[in-house]
């Protein structure tokens, strides 16, 4: 009996060792459809179709290369900048980039095609945007909700989370993703002809409007925002900032936000709901920022 258990255990481990994570989705679809066929619930043709369909769905977003996400990101960024002016304060933009890029370097995905870059927007709205290409924008209004470097770190880490969790890419309509990937897959190795450029530009425009509609007008789902908050907590913690900075920032945001506004008031869950969601998972100690950190933060945001 013991020997039987040993063999069974070893066999199970061997199967696990040979099953890579990337094929899990495919495997689940394949197994499910095979079981269905065996039970006579579906025909073998239907089974084939499900297997093919599952493979296509599982691969779709993965097939966009980092280079393509970069070009998508640049265009999304340009649309954001057609709505908001840049806050041309070199000192603050430098500081935000040092803090933001340091956080990104400590993350699980420190390298993306064009790197992570940050820019402050000249607006009293409470808003922030992250493109699939790693361009991250925060408004003066959102920075005003931060009283500590630890709080600003959490804001930037939340946006880095959106990039890494590919929330922007996931807001592309499914039909558009399929259309784009079909055109790209059939494209040869030659330079693009004018009709191919025209066709790809149409699809590209559609992709950009899908993403900017989510990003600027409708917002992501609450689930995506909570995921980004969790990613933020994990990242700031890893570097040595106190995640309580995020709670502090959300409390100030709760006071500053104007109901009915077109900014986070429209696109994000209520700050109090976000606090409850975060604190439902864990609690943090109060932030005690060293003077030197507090002073450089106050100096960087002076006049904002």
């Amino acid at each position: 009996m013991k020997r039987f258990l040993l063999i069974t255990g070893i066999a199970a481990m061997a199967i696990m060792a040979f099953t890579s994570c990337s094929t899990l989705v495919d495997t689940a679809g394949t197994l499910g459809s095979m079981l269905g066929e065996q039970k006579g619930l579906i025909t073998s043709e239907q089974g084939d179709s499900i297997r093919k369909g599952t493979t296509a769905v599982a691969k779709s977003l993965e097939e966009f290369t980092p280079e393509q996400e970069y070009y998508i990101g640049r265009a999304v960024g340009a649309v954001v900048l057609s709505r908001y002016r840049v806050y041309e304060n070199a000192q603050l933009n430098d500081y935000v980039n040092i803090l933001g890029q340091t956080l990104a370097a400590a993350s699980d995905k420190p390298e993306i095609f064009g790197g992570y870059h940050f820019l402050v927007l000249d607006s009293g709205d409470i808003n922030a945007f992250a493109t699939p290409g790693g361009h991250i924008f925060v408004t003066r209004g959102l920075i005003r909700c931060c009283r500590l470097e630890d709080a600003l770190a959490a804001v930037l880490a939340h946006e880095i989370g959106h990039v890494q969790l590919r929330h922007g890419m996931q807001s592309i309509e499914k039909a558009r993703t399929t259309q784009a990937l079909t055109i790209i897959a059939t494209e040869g190795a030659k330079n693009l002809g004018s009709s191919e450029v025209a066709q790809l530009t149409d699809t590209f425009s559609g992709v950009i409007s899908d993403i900017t509609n989510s990003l600027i007008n409708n917002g992501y789902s609450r689930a995506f925002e909570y995921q980004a908050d969790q990613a933020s907590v994990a990242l700031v913690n890893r570097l040595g900032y106190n995640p309580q900075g995020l709670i502090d920032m959300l409390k100030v945001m709760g006071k500053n936000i104007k109901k009915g506004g077109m900014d986070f008031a429209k696109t994000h869950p209520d700050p109090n709901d976000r606090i409850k969601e975060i604190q439902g998972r864990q609690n943090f100690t109060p932030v005690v920022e060293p003077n030197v950190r507090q002073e450089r933060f106050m100096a960087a945001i002076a006049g904002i």
Partner: protein
Amino acid sequence: MTGFRSMIFCLVLLVVQGLSPAVNAEETMSVQVKESEVRATPSFLGKIVAKVVYGDRVTVTGKSGSWTKVSLKGGTPQGWMHASALTTKRIILKAGQTNVKSGTSQDELALAGKGFNDQVEASFMNQNKILDYTWINLMETFKVKPELMKTFLAEGEVVAPSEGGAQ
């Protein structure tokens, strides 16, 4: 009984093979980001021993957490790159100059400049003249060196629970 023993032996061998670090001495990977660095130690604060660009091929010689030890063409220099900068796909640069047939498996290769590229961007900009890329181009030049990150953390007394930098 002997049959059982040899079966167990075979399974143990399979498990050991399956669980050992999956590093093949001949494994090659491609750089999938615009530019990156090879470092002396598996950390962003490690000294830069070489620079690599999009499409460069590297040979994998080891792994440590999220870091991959690589050697460049000719075997030297050796150093570490973060796994997020690498792909197992072969990236073919300069479409048109290689003998790549359309329909080759997407799992094996990616054509640089395929799909949404600078040509498509130029055409998109032409259709949307209201969009101004000036600040996008400018913000992409903001690059913080790892040495500055290190100083920034030290001066702000930001102390990581373990060693700083990506693990």
